[in-house]
């Protein structure tokens, strides 16, 4: 039932004109829906998150298909390892988005859309795409690893309490106290492999602390609830209580914080790459590209700008998706009715009723304009 339905009911007079506050408007929208349906609906309604999801998908598709992934060949003619013969005078980006009828060169990619590094003989488009692939692979792996560790540690320590909790939380404190750049940089060297995976592993092993604390807090609250008592009385084993009864209730927290963690992961990965402690040549990541070409910014900015723009684009999209997920999972989240809706609502009421309704609205919701 929507707001309009409500108004129709009010208008045709079949029901007494009960004061409608936004709580009931909100509840009327989700009658008869399951939790996941509600979450999905809320998420789809979040415009910024949906746009970001589309953009992110496009970036992933572009990176995955253009230079190929693993043995699968891509449609772009160069790869990040190909040596391109240097061409005098054509190192600028050839991509053009301005159509010919506006005085531009027409919409085309050209030979080197993001420009060409003449000294190393590298095509920047292929390099950037490879960097995007690296960053995405790293955050996928680190997402899986740190979510697993964080959930297990948080769940154990929240559910069992006592010395398990004390031990695990002190361990978490130890990891938190070490600056992320220090621990991941040192661990990257200690793992002694220079590819993508050790960097992902090093990040995954140390980024779980926030998630563990959140999951622990949720478990502490949930294990006191009646349904857990009921399961315990029914002689359910701990494993079943943890996985079947409590964990599904913490999915919102886990999903949201994993998303944001992956966003932060890209920034840390590229920062490590920038300092020279992350992915090492011949592999490229967005961070190493920015680092390699930082000196070129004033003379050949395209070498430097594109990797940075992709970092911002990916992280921004992930942030917005995370924000949308947070709103979707938050049970307290109310869809705040627009002022217009409220005023239209008020038109159908007498003065006394409007004042009565206003009392149920959030404090300061109307006079602050």
């Amino acid at each position, binding site marked *: 039932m929507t707001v309009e339905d409500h108004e129709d009911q009010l208008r045709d007079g079949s029901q007494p004109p009960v004061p409608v506050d936004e709580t009931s408007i909100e509840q009327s929208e989700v009658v008869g829906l399951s939790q996941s349906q509600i979450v999905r609906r809320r998420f789809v309604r979040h415009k910024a998150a949906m746009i970001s999801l589309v953009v992110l998908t496009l970036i992933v598709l572009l990176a995955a298909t253009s230079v190929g992934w693993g043995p699968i060949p891509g449609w772009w003619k160069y790869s990040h390892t190909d040596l391109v013969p240097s061409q005098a005078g054509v190192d600028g980006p050839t991509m053009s988005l301005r159509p010919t009828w506006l005085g531009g060169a027409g919409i085309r990619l050209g030979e080197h859309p993001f420009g060409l590094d003449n000294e190393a003989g590298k095509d920047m488009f292929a390099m950037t795409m490879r960097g995007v692939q690296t960053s995405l692979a790293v955050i996928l792996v680190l997402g899986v690893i740190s979510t697993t560790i964080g959930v297990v540690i948080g769940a154990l320590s929240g559910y069992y309490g006592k010395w398990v909790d004390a031990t695990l939380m002190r361990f978490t404190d130890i990891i938190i*106290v070490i*600056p992320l*750049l*220090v*621990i991941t940089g*040192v661990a990257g060297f200690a793992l002694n492999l220079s590819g993508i995976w050790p960097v992902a592993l090093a990040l995954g092993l140390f980024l779980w602390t926030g998630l563990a604390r959140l999951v622990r807090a949720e478990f502490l609250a949930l294990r006191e609830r009646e349904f857990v008592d009921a399961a315990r009385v029914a002689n359910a084993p701990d494993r079943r209580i943890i996985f079947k009864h409590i964990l599904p209730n913490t999915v919102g927290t886990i999903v949201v914080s994993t998303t944001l963690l992956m966003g932060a992961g890209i920034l840390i990965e590229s920062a490590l790459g920038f300092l020279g402690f992350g992915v090492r040549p011949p592999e490229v990541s967005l961070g190493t590209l920015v680092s390699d070409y930082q000196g070129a910014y004033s003379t050949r900015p395209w070498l430097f700008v594109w990797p940075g723009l992709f970092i911002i684009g990916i992280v921004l999209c992930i942030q917005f998706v995370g924000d949308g997920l947070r709103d979707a999972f938050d049970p307290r989240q109310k869809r705040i009715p627009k002022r217009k809706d409220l005023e239209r609502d008020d038109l159908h009421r007498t003065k006394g009723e409007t004042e009565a309704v206003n009392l149920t609205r959030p*404090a300061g919701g109307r006079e602050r304009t």
Partner: protein
Amino acid sequence: MAVYIVRRLIAAFFILVGASFLVYILMTQAGNPLGFTIAITNPTQRAAVVQQVTETLSLDVHPVQRYLNWLQRLLFEGDFGLVSQTQQPVWDELRLRVPLTLKLVSAATVMSVVVGISVGIVTALRQYSGFDYLVTFFTFVFFSLPVFWVAVILKSWGGINFNDWLRDGAHFSVAFIVAMSIVAAVIGSSFAGGQWGRKVVFGVLSAGAAAALLSWISSHQWMLDPGLGPIVYAIVAVAVAVGVVFVMAGWGNVRARNTALATAGVGIVSYFPLQRVFDWDMSLWTISGLAIIAVLVGVAIGYAMGGFDKGQSARTGALTAFLLSVVMFVDRAMQSWSEYSASSVIRNRPIKTIGDREDRLEGSFWVITNDTFGHLVLPTLALMLISLAAYTRYSRASMLEVLNQDYIRTARAKGLTNRTVVVRHAFRNALIPLATIVAFDISGIIGGAVITESVFEWEGMGRLFIDGLREFDPNRVMAFFVVTGIFAVVFNLLADITYAALDPRIRVGQ
């Protein structure tokens, strides 16, 4: 309380020991600190160097034993060990570097806290307005910025383009003035709120003001020789006084109004005498002393004119006096800008991108102040952008949370003015969670300044870590970790204590 603090400190000590063990062991596994000796061609010399480094880092014993040795020396002798390749004490480097990092971080933190909280509060008060959406979008963008990328762009933009622009006469182009006026119009109109008419009026007014100001700055080449002068100073002083009264007490409060205006009057009258004082041999201490005197004068005026409400008038006077002394400080520093800029070592390129000061520069306190500003401005901007976004988000969320509380509704219901509700009931309570977040963040910023320091080539602690890790030298990496770790632990404790002190519902130690 004392018991609680002691207990926390003991726990923190053991956490630091555990963490340092982890970092040390990982560090011993990271790589070979003797790798650099390959470059030494003379075999006997190489053997000597190898032996020396082995001894410095006690490479001949097991890593755990090595760690224990290191810990023992640190705890009982306060000895951070030697730098592996140069055999210099790490402490000598650390002592020089910590103040530099703190200088960088504190400037950025103070600025971003002040700006971030103000913007956050305004967006909360104008929730779901155009301004709110604009700011929210930009906070997301700032969150997503890789700091090293921004830093490199700032370096090029500030160090090359801006200095070139100054050299070319500091004229704004027409397009720039138009663009800035449009920006001012958007901000002004969304800031105003209310009906469309009001928004349009505010927008046009801000656009006009921006255009007039920028044209004046451009045509008078103000950026080459900035300064306020006594007349602008007097106008600013009155404006500051009026603004403070509006926020702190409300325009209707005659006593606070008189206090603020009297303070502004004293500030204006003392302008010329103070110019003489500023030419004496100044230092940071004397400047702070003058600021304190100014605040005391403000308090005294407030007490004298406060009538039955001395407290509020004193606060108004103190804040007015403090802001006026900041304005006067800036004005005096600006007067030395052209002297600084024209000096033979700066050669009219005042915005610097390398290091924290120009060693060869000689001059008065004010010239040195300008030099510090020229070096600080870009790295501070880079650091600010990111923490600014965080503080804006936090303070907006916290303010919204408070504004929806029942006591705010009560305050409004009993007829208090909007200003009283917002400033006194809402703002103060919104600051409580912010105090903890700020304390918590400071330790993180110190650790995060590594990248900014590396881009702007500051000889701060970040370099210690980077160089240490590149050369697989545990002593330097551990020194960096110990300092940041202590900061983290202390500020966490401070955060908890502040929370308990500010919010009577929270009791620590129970």
